[in-house]
């Protein structure tokens, strides 16, 4: 490796580190992207300077194609960000796996496969392959291109891990004797299959946590590639990616009060609708006109957005509502639950997209003490994150999960299409409470109506 390349890599690493530090607040965050782009440019520039590169044809075509696919992929609607993330992990895993595969055959020919190199290549290829298929499957589930419910059968975990054990054993064999090259394609195949098996038993609504985990795996596979290529920059960047995914998964598991193993192997969501039947309770329903009147009369309103708002793409209508109410002098805040929506921080991005200023978004722990003083709590397509059973019913599957105390507001209004349960598949007492009014319908349609009523009333 030439000195120039080494220097470029050396300069790129601190820029990546600074980039992540600048993500600590929205004020400095755009600098973060800039610094990461410069670092990437340095890494690529340094590599292209290498004298061993003697043809740029393939590189040029591939980079061009990458831009042609990458640019449109960055223009997806923000509700599709989770799918895009899954897809991007699949691409990352693919790239790492392909390089590892090519290196194996090259070094095999050249006879330079030391046991150490063989070992890291084995690990790298397994990680890359499983991230690739895992990411693809997660993306498909998130995009609801395939059924999102967990697909399980007896002994699933045993079969999965037996497969993984076989792959590891074969890798061990290759470390012992790299020339048993028949084993290598089997390792690749198992890696690909294992990725599928890892994701199949996980329900669609757990996908957000799963893509955080896949982020970890993608990072780790980049680290492994760094070991293979003896490249420190790759190790650092991969470790940053890996720890980021890890920390985010932990944060989300904590916010759901579930353990990591429960998310990965618990097949959560398969019991959906189990408790849906029961004694018939009645909920009060209201019209958009009622809702408009109540909102206009309120002093403080807290809006709790959830998965349903994302599905209905209602964020722009929510902004109209926010603006109208603010103009009338109502104090409107947004209470964002850490796991609301389809990926960590998803609600924040959607609300930001609708140009709702981020200082109006309040975190769960800060809003809860204020809830008893709130006049109206408007729940938009959220369910589990406002289910009081999490506080009171120790038999509930979500018992212990911290929730937004919507029920403590003077009046609760909830927008959803039916009385159906949310992701956790359990009934929500909140919707039968005395101070709760249901606004049935698609979130976007209902809010549009409310906005129309409000501005009409305004005009009259």
């Amino acid at each position, binding site marked *: 490796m030439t000195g120039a390349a080494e220097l470029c890599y050396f300069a790129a690493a601190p820029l990546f580190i600074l980039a992540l530090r600048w993500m600590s607040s929205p004020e400095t965050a755009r600098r973060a992207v800039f610094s990461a782009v410069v670092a*990437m440019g340095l890494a690529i520039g340094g*590599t292209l300077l290498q004298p061993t590169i003697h043809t740029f044809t393939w590189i040029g075509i591939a980079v061009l194609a990458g831009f042609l696919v990458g*640019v449109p992929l960055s223009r997806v609607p923000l509700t599709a*960000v989770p799918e895009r993330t899954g897809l991007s992990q699949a691409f990352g895993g693919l790239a790492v796996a392909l390089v590892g595969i090519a290196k194996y055959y090259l070094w095999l020919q050249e006879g330079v496969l030391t046991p150490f190199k063989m070992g890291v290549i084995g690990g790298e290829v397994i990680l890359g392959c499983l991230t690739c298929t895992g990411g693809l499957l997660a993306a498909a589930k998130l995009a609801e291109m395939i059924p999102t419910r967990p697909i399980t059968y007896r002994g699933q975990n045993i079969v999965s891990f037996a497969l993984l054990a076989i792959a590891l054993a074969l890798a061990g064999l290759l470390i012992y004797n790299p020339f048993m090259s028949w084993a290598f394609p089997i390792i690749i195949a198992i890696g690909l299959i294992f990725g599928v098996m890892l994701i199949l038993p996980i329900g669609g609504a757990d996908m957000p946590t799963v893509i955080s985990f896949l982020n970890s795996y993608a990072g780790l596979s980049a680290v492994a590639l760094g070991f293979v290529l003896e490249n420190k920059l790759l190790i650092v960047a991969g470790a940053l990616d890996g720890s980021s995914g890890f920390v985010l998964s932990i944060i989300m598991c904590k916010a759901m009060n579930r353990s990591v193993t429960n998310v990965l192997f618990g097949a959560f969501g398969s019991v959906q609708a189990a408790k849906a039947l029961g004694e018939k309770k009645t909920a009060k329903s209201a019209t958009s006109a009622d809702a408009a009147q109540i909102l206009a009369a309120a002093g403080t309103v807290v809006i709790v957005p959830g998965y349903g708002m994302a599905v209905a793409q209602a964020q722009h209508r929510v902004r109209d509502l926010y603006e109208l109410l603010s103009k009338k002098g109502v104090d409107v805040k947004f209470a964002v639950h850490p796991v609301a929506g389809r990926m960590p921080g998803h609600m924040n991005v959607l609300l930001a997209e609708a140009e709702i200023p981020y200082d109006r978004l309040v975190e769960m722990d800060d809003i809860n003490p204020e809830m008893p003083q709130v006049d109206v709590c408007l729940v938009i397509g959220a369910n589990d994150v406002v289910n009081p059973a999490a506080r009171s019913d120790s038999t509930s599957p979500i018992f212990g999960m911290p929730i937004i105390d919507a029920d403590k507001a003077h009046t609760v209004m909830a927008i959803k299409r039916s009385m159906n349960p949310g992701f956790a598949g359990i009934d929500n007492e909140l919707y039968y409470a005395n101070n709760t009014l249901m606004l049935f319908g698609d979130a976007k349609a209902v809010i549009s109506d409310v906005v129309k009523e409000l501005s009409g009333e305004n005009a009259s």
Partner: protein
Amino acid sequence: MTLDMLTALFVFMLATFLGLDIIRRVSRLLHTPLMSLTNAISAVAVVGALLLAGEAHDTLSTVLGAVAVFASTTNFVSGFLITDRMLRMFKKRETPKS
């Protein structure tokens, strides 16, 4: 410029400690863009792919390398662009409209 295993592990350990510390300080608001940014960053794997495609040892490795370059490029291009797009949306105060 070889890197022995223990040194590589050393670098990995330090970077992991650092990553865990830094990520824990990232604002909750930004978890989604954080994810797309780290995703894009881990596409530095392109470095290995470029060498493979450019050194063109044999058809297999060249093709695999080119595909890997394509995949990584897609990754960092779309990752950086979408992160920036999302971050541009985060505004503190409303711009007063007349």
